[in-house]
């Protein structure tokens, strides 16, 4: 029975996949984070606000979302509600990071799989190469240009991207002036115009009328601009490659919810005071999720200890030797005792988006559904961004004084890749405890105590592989989860652990 080991590139960070194949079908997969950086215990003993500086540096790709999670945890500790203008600035910055990440992931990280020479017999292959060739395709070049441009918005609101710390308990450090705000609105409208012209091939409003699979079919043939747009081409080519029939996840979806609706806003959507609703879904049934039921398991990860809630769990690298069942530096988070997939598709399902409920009911949570949700997420975010920017006025309050901090807090949000949580405990203005559960920990999770695999591991099982020497079928499945392993890794202080190192090669 051949076993394939793949060191994955075009994921952020270090991921290796081991797939066992029998009769041309993946029977079992193990996904391993192969790097350990130990951020969580670096935090212990540091100043109460230091998470605002250290944790964005976990990930250069979703730095803003870590800042949001860190500041939300501190908001909870302080008990001070940030002024509405600060909420708007935080939201717009985080959404800007999302709308650029969604396109960079789709076209720079995911799409190169679709132009692998193994697909050269496909009728649309030449066209795909013209669009997606790494660092040279027509779409690739435009995506690099436009995503770079729109990030200036974060520099205006927060000084730089990535890795700034302008969100502080009590609000934000700065309120942009009229000229700055006008520039932000211009950058956003420019990005929206490009997104509509190039990515959708239609106005956002037209796309948002697509509410079912039948609507999608009609949309595809309605106008040549739609059929030939990036979205139109992607759907047609992905179907030709069979991506609507592979990579099916568990059908269990998690969203922590994100983007608080500020007081007095004209944005009328959202559930429970947030634009992106929180919840846990199974088979299209959405229920509230209980954050207290989260447990991180470590029996298959290189850590000591047992399953624990992040408010009390610790990160101690496993140091005692030879237990073959451990294979990853990622812990295994579970909610209500089970694994759950998170990300843009999970957001759409939890929000009861009729198109994605229909798609997943018919085709399951396929690679196509996952990537489609990512590609069209800007269509739900851009209009609210415009409103929030227009609602900020130069006389708005943006900061309320917060003094020394003590107590516990949890900062939950949705990063570009899904559910992200920071849990902190502070005494006398010093951090006593810090735990982070990242989206990729949910998605790329190893097995838990009882043995069931994580969502990606499950999505890989059952995949047909033509040539085990070049398993081109696996790349799109892995990358449809947009793994960010730099986030999923942990770091600890020197001197906390000793002993022999343990080495696994899958």
């Amino acid at each position: 029975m051949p076993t394939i080991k793949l060191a994955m590139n075009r994921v952020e960070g270090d991921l290796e996949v081991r797939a066992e194949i029998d009769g041309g079908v993946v029977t079992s997969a193990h996904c391993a984070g192969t790097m350990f950086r130990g951020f969580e215990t670096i935090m212990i003993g540091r100043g109460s606000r230091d998470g605002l500086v250290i944790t964005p540096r976990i990930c250069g790709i979703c730095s803003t979302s870590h800042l949001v999670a860190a500041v939300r945890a501190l908001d909870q500790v302080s008990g001070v509600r940030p002024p509405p203008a600060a909420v708007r600035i935080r939201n717009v910055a985080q959404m800007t990071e999302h709308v650029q990440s969604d396109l960079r992931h789709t076209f720079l990280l995911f799409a190169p799989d679709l132009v692998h020479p193994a697909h050269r017999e496909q009728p649309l292959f030449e066209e795909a190469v013209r669009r997606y060739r790494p660092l040279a395709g027509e779409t690739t070049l435009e995506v690099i240009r436009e995503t770079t441009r729109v990030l200036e918005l974060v520099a205006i609101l927060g000084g730089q991207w990535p890795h700034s710390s302008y969100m502080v308990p009590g609000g934000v450090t700065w309120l942009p002036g009229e000229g700055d705000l006008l520039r932000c609105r211009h950058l956003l409208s420019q990005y929206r115009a490009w997104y509509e012209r190039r990515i959708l091939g239609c106005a956002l409003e037209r796309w948002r009328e697509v509410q079912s699979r039948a609507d999608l079919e009609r949309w595809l043939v309605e106008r040549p601009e739609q059929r030939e747009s990036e979205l139109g081409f992607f759907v047609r080519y992905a179907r030709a490659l069979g991506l609507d029939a592979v990579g099916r996840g568990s059908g269990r979806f998690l969203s922590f919810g994100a983007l608080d609706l500020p007081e007095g806003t004209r944005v009328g959507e959202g559930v429970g005071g947030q634009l992106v609703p929180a919840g846990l879904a199974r088979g299209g049934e959405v229920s509230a999720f209980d954050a207290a039921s989260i447990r991180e398991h470590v029996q298959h990860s290189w850590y000591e200890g047992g399953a624990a809630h992040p408010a009390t769990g610790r990160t101690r690298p496993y140091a005692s030797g030879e237990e073959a069942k451990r294979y990853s530096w990622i812990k295994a988070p579970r909610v209500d005792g089970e694994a759950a997939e998170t990300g843009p598709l999970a957001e759409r399902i939890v929000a009861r988006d009729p198109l994605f409920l229909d798609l997943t009911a018919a085709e399951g949570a396929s690679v196509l559904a996952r990537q489609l949700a990512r590609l069209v997420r800007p269509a739900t975010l851009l209009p609210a961004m415009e409103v929030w920017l227009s609602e900020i006025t130069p006389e708005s309050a943006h900061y309320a004084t917060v003094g020394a901090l003590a107590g516990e807090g949890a900062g939950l949000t949705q990063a570009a890749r899904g559910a992200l949580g920071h849990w902190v405990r502070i005494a006398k203005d010093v951090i006593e405890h810090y735990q982070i559960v990242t989206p990729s920990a949910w998605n790329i999770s190893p097995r838990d105590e009882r043995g069931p695999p994580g969502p990606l591991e499950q999505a890989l099982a059952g995949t047909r592989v033509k040539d085990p020497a070049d398993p081109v079928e696996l790349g799109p499945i892995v990358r449809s989860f947009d793994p960010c392993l730099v986030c999923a890794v942990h770091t600890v202080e020197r001197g906390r652990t000793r002993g022999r190192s343990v080495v696994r090669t899958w």
Partner: protein
Amino acid sequence: MTKQTLYWLQGGACGGDSMSLLGIENPELPGLLNLLELELLWHPSLSSGDHARLLDELARGARPLDILVLEGSVIRGPGGSGMYDVLLGRPKKDLIAQLAQRARYVVAAGTCASFGGIGADGAIEATGVQFLKKRRGGFLGPDFRSAAGAPVINLPGCPCHGEVLASTLGLLARGSVPALNELQAPLEWYGLLVHQGCVRNEYHEYRVEERDFGDKGCLFFFLGCRGPLSYGPCNKLLWSRRSSKTRVGVPCFGCTDPTFPQPLPFFKTAAIADVPLELPAGVDRAHYLAYKGMAAAAAPQRLSARLTRV
């Protein structure tokens, strides 16, 4: 003429320096590579193809390697094994050592690669490529020289500014090594202070200092700003050609410093009787305090009342 080659490797990295490089403008990254006639052999986020074969060719010298860029620290833990960071079962530090022996130039992109950065005090035993914090040596040793005879070129910053990365690649592509400071960072971008160009300089000059977030004054005396101590081009080049942390009221955290991240709390200046323990680079303490006392007394009302905009 054949193109020069560039190989980008990530060790203990967050990808932030890659995002900086991807965020350059006029030209954007693909245009830059064309302009410099550089062939990007591999970048972990952007490339596809047979990586194992490429690595083998590079290691054997069958394929020339002109510029090696390392992003992120060299992870040596646990116990010097490097097994906290592996590529197909092999410590990545061994790959770094192997490629560094082949490359004409070695560039450390960002503070982690330059000095160890995050994790340098941790169990992961992180180090920079040729420095561990302020001490020359690091992973490759103090005497290391790349094939073209240059030491490792450090481009600190968390992340490193994209224009600094792009310009350094431009210089190396034509065989020119920039003039370096004692930390092996190019003087052009690390021979000036973050403070230079900060729009709060007026407030700094007259010691109009903030004790809390959200206002226009200087952040140096109380809020932990290291702008007058740290070397870097943030307020000259600006980010996205537009702004910087200090311009929006966020203290400089000294992310280009070899000791970043500092052990003391951020957002607080270590001080005795309201006077910072660390004063701006190079000043004489007695003279500085006398000057600051007079400056505060001379502060115009437009500053003490925070009327001057930033």
